[in-house]
C-alpha cells in the first residue's frame, strides 16, 4: 500500500507552502521522521518529516506552491509498489476533451450571422449601427453593420448573399459567436423567417435559444421632483411627505441648514387645507420641473474601460505616492530644444522629456518595468511604454514598443504617431498591448495630482500634474519656481515603499537636472 504525503499546515496563518528542496532523491528509501523535504511558508523554511517508512515517489517539484493538505508525493511500502506507482503514471487518464458534436444545422436557405471576434481580447461587441435596413438585399462582402469592441469601431461585412433579417439591435451587447441576424437566400425564405413568431428560422429547431433581447429600458421612473441637487429632509418628514403624496420640491425646509422637518410637512398640509382647491391623491400636487433622465447603456470602449479599471482596483493592492519637483530648469531646457526645432526636425514637448526620463528611470528600476499575473512577477528587459491618451471615445493606452532603444526625437515621433491615431480611432490591433509601464500626463488640465489606476498586468503607473509657478525655497531664499507633482501608483503586492521612494527620488533627480535625461 502506498501513502500520500501532503503539504502540512505549519502555523496559524499557513494556507500554502512552496517546496524549496527535496533532500532525498526520487525513489529513495525513507523512514518515518526523516527530514526529506524543505518547504517555505509565509514565515520560515521548515523541514518536512516523513510520515511513513517506504520508498519515495515525488509528485510536487521544487518551486511548486502547494496548498495545505494537497499531495506532494507518495511513500510506497515496497519496491514493487514503488515501481507500480511510477509506471502507472497519473491515475486514470482524464477523459478526452471531446467537444460535443455540434450540428451545423443551418438550413440551406438561411444563414446565421454572428458577432465576429475582432482582436485578441475581444469577448463581446456592441452594435453601433446597422447600415442597411431590415429586409434589404445584401451581398457577401457588403459592410452592413458597425460594432464597437473594447478598442475600436469595426465594420461587419456580410458573409452571404440574400435578404437580411436583423435580430440584435443597435446598442445591444453581443457575445462573440452569438447571433446578430440571418441572411435568407430568397425572398420567400425571408418571409418565412420573419413570419415565424419567435423569429428564429424554422430550420433551426434545436438551435440555442435565441438571445433574449436586452430588456428595453423601463419607462423612466418617476423621480423625486426635486429639480437639481439633493433635498435635505429628515427620515420622518420624508415618510410623511410620501404618505400624503407631497412632492418634496413643494416643501420649504425650516429646520437647521434648511432641512425639511416634520413640522414643514404639517405646515404644508395645513396651508393646502385652506386652499380653495384641495390637494387630493387623484390630482397631482403642484409639479416641479420634471427631471429628465437619459439612460446611456455601457457599451464598447466605455464598457471595456469600466471593466478594466474596476478589475484593476479589485485585484491589486494599489497605493499612490507623490513628490513635488521643480521643473523650472526642465521648462527652460525644453524651450532650448524648441528653439532648435529646425535642427532637430521636431518640436519636443515637455511630455517627451518626462517620458524619456521615465524610460531612464525604468532601466534603473526593473521591478517597476514588470507585469504580474498573481503568481509570477515578470520583469521585462525592454521598456514598452504605455501612454494614456484622453480621446473623446474614451481612454486609449497605446504602447511605444522598445522605448528604451529610442532617442528623444524617435520617441517624440513614436508617441505623436500613436496619440494622433488614438484620437482618430485609427489604432491597430496590437497597438495597445504588450506595455510594461504606463505614463499618464494630466498637466494640460488644471489638475495638480490624481491617483492613477494601474493598467493590468502592469505593476505601476506614473502620472504628471500641471506645472504651476509657486514660491519655493532655493538656497534658503524664497524664489518663484515652476513646480509640478509626480505621482506613482504601484502594486504593493509586487514591491514596497522602499522601491517607490527610490523611484521617485531618481525621477526627481532626472526632472530637476534635465540634461541627465538626454545624456
Amino acid at each position, binding site marked *: 500500500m502506498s501513502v500520500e504525503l501532503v503539504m502540512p499546515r505549519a502555523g496559524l496563518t499557513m494556507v500554502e507552502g512552496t517546496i524549496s528542496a527535496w533532500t532525498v532523491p526520487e525513489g529513495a528509501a525513507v523512514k518515518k521522521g526523516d527530514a526529506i523535504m524543505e518547504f517555505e511558508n509565509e514565515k520560515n523554511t521548515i523541514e518536512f518529516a516523513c510520515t511513513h517508512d517506504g520508498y519515495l515517489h515525488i509528485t510536487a517539484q521544487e518551486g511548486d506552491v502547494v496548498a495545505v493538505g494537497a499531495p506532494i508525493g507518495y511513500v510506497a511500502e515496497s519496491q514493487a509498489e514503488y515501481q507500480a506507482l511510477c509506471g502507472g503514471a497519473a491515475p486514470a487518464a482524464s477523459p478526452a476533451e471531446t467537444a460535443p458534436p455540434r450540428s451545423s444545422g443551418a438550413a440551406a436557405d438561411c444563414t446565421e450571422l454572428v458577432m465576429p471576434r475582432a482582436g485578441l481580447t475581444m469577448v463581446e461587441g456592441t452594435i453601433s449601427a446597422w447600415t442597411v435596413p431590415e429586409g434589404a438585399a445584401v451581398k457577401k462582402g457588403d459592410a452592413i453593420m458597425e460594432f464597437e469592441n473594447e478598442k475600436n469601431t469595426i465594420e461587419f461585412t456580410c458573409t452571404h448573399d440574400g435578404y437580411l433579417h436583423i435580430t440584435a439591435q443597435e446598442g445591444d451587447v453581443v457575445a462573440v459567436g452569438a447571433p446578430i441576424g440571418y441572411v435568407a437566400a430568397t425572398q420567400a425564405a425571408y418571409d418565412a423567417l420573419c413570419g415565424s413568431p419567435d423569429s428564429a428560422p424554422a430550420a433551426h429547431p434545436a438551435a440555442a435559444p435565441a438571445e433574449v433581447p436586452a430588456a428595453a429600458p423601463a419607462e423612466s421612473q418617476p423621480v423625486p421632483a426635486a429639480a437639481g441637487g439633493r433635498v435635505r429632509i*429628515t427620515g*420622518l418628514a420624508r415618510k410623511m411627505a410620501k404618505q400624503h403624496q407631497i412632492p418634496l420640491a413643494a416643501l420649504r425646509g425650516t*429646520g*437647521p*441648514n434648511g432641512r425639511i422637518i416634520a413640522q414643514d410637512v404639517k405646515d404644508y398640509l395645513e396651508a393646502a387645507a385652506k386652499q380653495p382647491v384641495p390637494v387630493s391623491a387623484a390630482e397631482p400636487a403642484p409639479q416641479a420641473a420634471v427631471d429628465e433622465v437619459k439612460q446611456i447603456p455601457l457599451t464598447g470602449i466605455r464598457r471595456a474601460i469600466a471593466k478594466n479599471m474596476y478589475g484593476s482596483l479589485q485585484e491589486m493592492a494599489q497605493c499612490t505616492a507623490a513628490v513635488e519637483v521643480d521643473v523650472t530648469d526642465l521648462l527652460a531646457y525644453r524651450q532650448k530644444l524648441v528653439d532648435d526645432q529646425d535642427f532637430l526636425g521636431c518640436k519636443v514637448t515637455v511630455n517627451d522629456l518626462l517620458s524619456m526620463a521615465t524610460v531612464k528611470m525604468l532601466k534603473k528600476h526593473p521591478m517597476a518595468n514588470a507585469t504580474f499575473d498573481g503568481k509570477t512577477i515578470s520583469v521585462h528587459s525592454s521598456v514598452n511604454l504605455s501612454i494614456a491618451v484622453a480621446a473623446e471615445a474614451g481612454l486609449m493606452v497605446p504602447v511605444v514598443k522598445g522605448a528604451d532603444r529610442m532617442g528623444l526625437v524617435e520617441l517624440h515621433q513614436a508617441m505623436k504617431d500613436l496619440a494622433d491615431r488614438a484620437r482618430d480611432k485609427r489604432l491597430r490591433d496590437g497597438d495597445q498591448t504588450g506595455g510594461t509601464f504606463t505614463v499618464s500626463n494630466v498637466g494640460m488640465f488644471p489638475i495638480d495630482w490624481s491617483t492613477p489606476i494601474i493598467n493590468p498586468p502592469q505593476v505601476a503607473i506614473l502620472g504628471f500634474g500641471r506645472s504651476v509657478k509657486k514660491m519655493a525655497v532655493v538656497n534658503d531664499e524664497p524664489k518663484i519656481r515652476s513646480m509640478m507633482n509626480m505621482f506613482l501608483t504601484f502594486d504593493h503586492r509586487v514591491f514596497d515603499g522602499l522601491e517607490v521612494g527610490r523611484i521617485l527620488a531618481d525621477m526627481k533627480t532626472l526632472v530637476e537636472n534635465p540634461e541627465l535625461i538626454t545624456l
Partner: protein
Amino acid sequence: MQTTYLQAVGAALQEEMRRDDKVLIFGEDVAEFGNIFGVTRGMLEEFGPQRVRNTSISETAIIGTALGAAVTGLRPVAELMYADFTMVAFSEIFHCVAKWRFMHGEAYKVPLVIRCAMGSSFGAGAEHSNCVESLFMHAPGLTIISPTTPYDAKGLLKSAIRSDNPVLFCEHKQLYQTKGEVPDGDYTIPIGVADVKRPGTDVTVVAVGLMVRRALEAAELLQKEGISVEVIDPRTLVPFDKETVFQSLRKTHHVVVAEESNKTAGIGAELAAMIQEEMYDELDGPIGRVAALDIPIPYNIALEKYVIPDAGRIAEAVRAQLARNC
C-alpha cells in the same frame, strides 16, 4: 420608607446573603472597614469572616477568584472599589469572565457580580472618576447595570445576584447619599427593562447614571419653556431595552443621549448608531449626544464640573432638537 442609595445597595446584599448561603462578598476593605463608602458596614459582624472577606490589593485575583468560585457553585459578589480599577483586571473581565461560558460550554455557569463605585465628583481626579459602562459594552457575555435610584439599586442588585450570568454593577458615587422611596422586604427588578423616569411628548432624553438626575432637572427647566421632555433611564445597558426607547421615539421623533463618560465611542455613539439604523424613518432630525468632554477628568473641581455635562448642557441639546430656521 425613605432610604439612601447606599443603604439600598447594602440592604440588597444583606437580604440576599440571608436568603442564600452561597452568596459571599469579598474585595478590598469590605470587612471591618465596611467598604470605603460604608456599603458593607456591619456585614462582617452578621455573616462572619468566611462570607465577608477582605482581599489583598489584587484586582486580577479578586476577579479570577470570583470566576472560580462561581463556576464551582458559589454566588460571589466581588468588589473592585473604584470602577477605574476594572481596568487593572480588564483581561480577567473581558477575556475570562465574559467569555467563560461561551468558551467552555453550557456546563459552565458564571453567577457572579462585580460591584464598583463609579463617576465624577469631589475632585477625585483622572484615575478615580471614570464611568466604564461603554468600555464593557464591547464585551459580549457581560450584563451591565447602572442604577440611578435607591429603589432601582436594590431591586436590580438582587436580580444581579440571582442571575446565572456575570454582572458588572456600577454604583454612582454621587448618588450614594441621595434618597428615595424603597419598600420594605423582598422585591426584584427585571434585568433589561428600562424605566420612563418622566413622561413627555416633544423630545426623548435617554440618560445614564448620574445624567438621569441632570436630565430630570433639565426637563423641569424646559417645561417652563413649553418643551415637554421624556426621560428614559435604561437602567441596564446590556441587555438594552430598545423597545421602550423606540416607543418613546414614535411619539417624540427627537432623541438626545446623555452620559457621563467621554463622547468618543461612548454610549451615545452606540445608541445613536443603533437608533438611526432601526428607527430612521421616525427621526425628525439628527440624534443629539451630551457627554463628558474628550479629556481626562481634571482634579480642579470647577473644571471637573465643566467637563461633566450638567442640566444646562442637556437642556441646550434638547432645544437644538427643536430649533427652526424660520
